[in-house]
């Protein structure tokens, strides 16, 4: 067994950390307060070639694995950029996996180099108002009309849609009642967010305010057949391949925020004097932080294991789910404790921990809820009857 990072992974960690450090907490506080996409940050990572980390070299990327991407996004989050930074990069770093795996050669040549260079933003439109955890019940429809599909429906939570020019969009091509299996009959499109047919409405939300999430209305959007990703009616299965790595990356991002929170909490606990001594001298402060430290270390091992399994072509469903479950649970706990350690100042924006707390909270909900992870583990790992 080898727990060491390779020299390349070590270098990625250091350099990602160094570049992320160019953008301090004050920058992120500002982006968050102004609801402003972090363009300078995004451009710096694009210019240095990080966005294409997982895109194959023949399409302008670096062709590295999920292990490396996880290190990148963990470091970005841990810098204090939290989800505002991680989400700004996340979709380019990994959102295009279905195109890499299932897209036509023509589509890949057209899309991937542009995305790797940071010039093309793609959003992810899966969730609908009445279909979140239960994807097969989506109602957005795509109907074939000559060499086009016409798409009509409503998506919700589509992140970064305001910046993106394209969206990976899941729509029903065969109505649910006509499908043999509920997971059949859906198709994945790489569609233009053409303002003539698409209306985007930002959702006011708890945090991660530098990256918008939106309601998106598709009003008979025409999409050329050549923009279908993979096979018609098989879209759900094309997405499945990308779910595990996405969970691993989200886990790494949560882990990064947990580490940032813990770093801030311990620094504050050392310097804040109450009753004549540093608050960090009290076990009431030390123990929760030490407990969080241990938990984050354990979560990190699960993230690494899941990434290693994926990169070695092995099944990793359970590990990817557990990594996301543990990291988001414990990172939120760490952020909550960091807030508590800061006393009243924890509640003030100036100290940043409230921002970490708001942002890491979403990982217990998206891209998959904790409950759905437990459903998966109960059913597939413990062999218990499916509950839903």
């Amino acid at each position, binding site marked *: 067994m080898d727990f060491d990072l390779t020299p390349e992974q070590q270098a*990625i960690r*250091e*350099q990602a950390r*160094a570049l992320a450090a160019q953008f301090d907490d004050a920058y992120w506080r500002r982006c968050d307060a102004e609801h402003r996409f972090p363009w300078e940050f995004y451009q710096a990572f694009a210019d240095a070639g990080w966005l294409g980390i997982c895109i194959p070299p023949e399409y302008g990327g670096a062709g*590295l694995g999920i292990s490396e991407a996880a290190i990148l996004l963990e470091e970005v989050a841990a810098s204090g950029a939290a989800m505002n930074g991680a989400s700004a990069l996340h979709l380019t770093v990994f959102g295009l996996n279905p195109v890499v795996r299932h897209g036509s050669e023509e589509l890949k040549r057209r899309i991937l180099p542009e995305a790797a260079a940071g010039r093309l933003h793609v959003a992810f439109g899966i969730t609908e108002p009445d279909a979140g955890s239960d994807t097969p019940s989506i109602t957005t429809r795509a109907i074939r009309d000559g060499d086009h599909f016409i798409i009509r429906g409503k998506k919700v939570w589509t992140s970064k849609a305001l910046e993106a020019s394209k969206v990976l969009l899941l729509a029903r091509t065969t109505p649910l009642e006509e499908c043999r299996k509920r997971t059949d009959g859906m198709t994945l499109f790489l569609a233009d967010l053409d303002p003539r047919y698409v209306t985007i409405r930002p959702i006011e939300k708890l945090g991660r305010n530098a990256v918008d999430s939106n309601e998106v209305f598709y009003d008979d959007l025409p999409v050329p057949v050549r923009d279908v990703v993979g096979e018609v009616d098989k879209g759900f299965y094309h997405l499945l391949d990308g779910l595990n790595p996405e969970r691993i990356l989200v886990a790494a991002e949560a882990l990064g925020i947990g580490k940032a929170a813990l770093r801030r909490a311990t*620094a504050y606990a050392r*310097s804040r004097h109450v009753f004549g001594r540093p608050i960090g001298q009290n076990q009431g402060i030390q123990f929760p932080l030490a407990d969080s430290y241990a938990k984050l270390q354990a979560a990190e091992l699960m993230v690494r294991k899941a990434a290693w399994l994926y990169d070695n072509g092995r099944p990793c469903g359970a590990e990817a789910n557990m990594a996301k479950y543990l990291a988001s649970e414990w990172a939120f706990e760490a952020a909550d404790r960091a807030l508590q350690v800061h006393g009243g100042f924890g509640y003030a924006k100036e100290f940043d921990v409230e921002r970490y707390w708001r942002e890491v909270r979403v990982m217990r909900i998206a891209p998959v809820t904790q409950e759905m992870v437990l459903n998966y583990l109960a059913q597939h790992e413990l062999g218990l009857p499916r509950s839903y």
Partner: protein
Amino acid sequence: MNIIVCVKQIPDPETPASSFRVDEAAKKVVPAQGIPPVVNPYDPQATEAALRLKEAAGGGKVTVISLGPESARDAIKHALAMGADEGILLNDPGFEGIDNFQTAVALAKAIEKVGQYDLILMGRAAADWDMGVVPMGVATLLGIPCVSIAKAIERVDGKVRVTRVLDDGFQTVEAPLPAVVSVSNEFGEPRYPQLRQIMLAAKKTVQVWNAADLGLSADQLGEANRWLKLEALYVPKVESKVEIIEADSPEEKARILAQKLRADKLI
């Protein structure tokens, strides 16, 4: 154009005051827990200068040298990730505790061992002690010119033309090559390492030379050969006192305040 860049790893200057400790008895800075050391902030600028000069010359080699502990390899790797060609770590238990002069001796020996060089670049100072004397020391030992605190460096007709930063302006000088030039922050932003370059750099091996490889004896590195004697090292105490000025009118308060400030020689 063959350029040697000297880089140093230092404690993070952004270390919060609450984590900064000095061992007064040992006269040493205690490494801050959980805050890894960083590349001296001026050094990537020296590396940037080297890369630009190499690019302008259309070829050559940039060699990076760092004297320091095993962890200083990271400072070298950073320069390699920026695009430098080769790295050499000068590492020896005997280097522990040497002064600036002995550092200059070791660097000069290493530079002679590398052999081929047109230009040697360094940061204007290391941000830990902020003395900025090593470039002069190295130049003196090698018997070549030293131009300090450069904001721009250009190669013209086998010479180097350097714009220096002064307190109240700039000065442009020329020196024959080879020469030592120390680079200031006014030089401009160093490039961010490209992911591709980072991967290449990670695969490169950094050579390690010890004192014997440089032909340095224990005596040369010993106490007796130190020019700098550290008498005491301590964190100054900052005290604050508050005095409320009482008077009948704002004008009167201002007058008393002005008198007090003048008495304390603050105005």
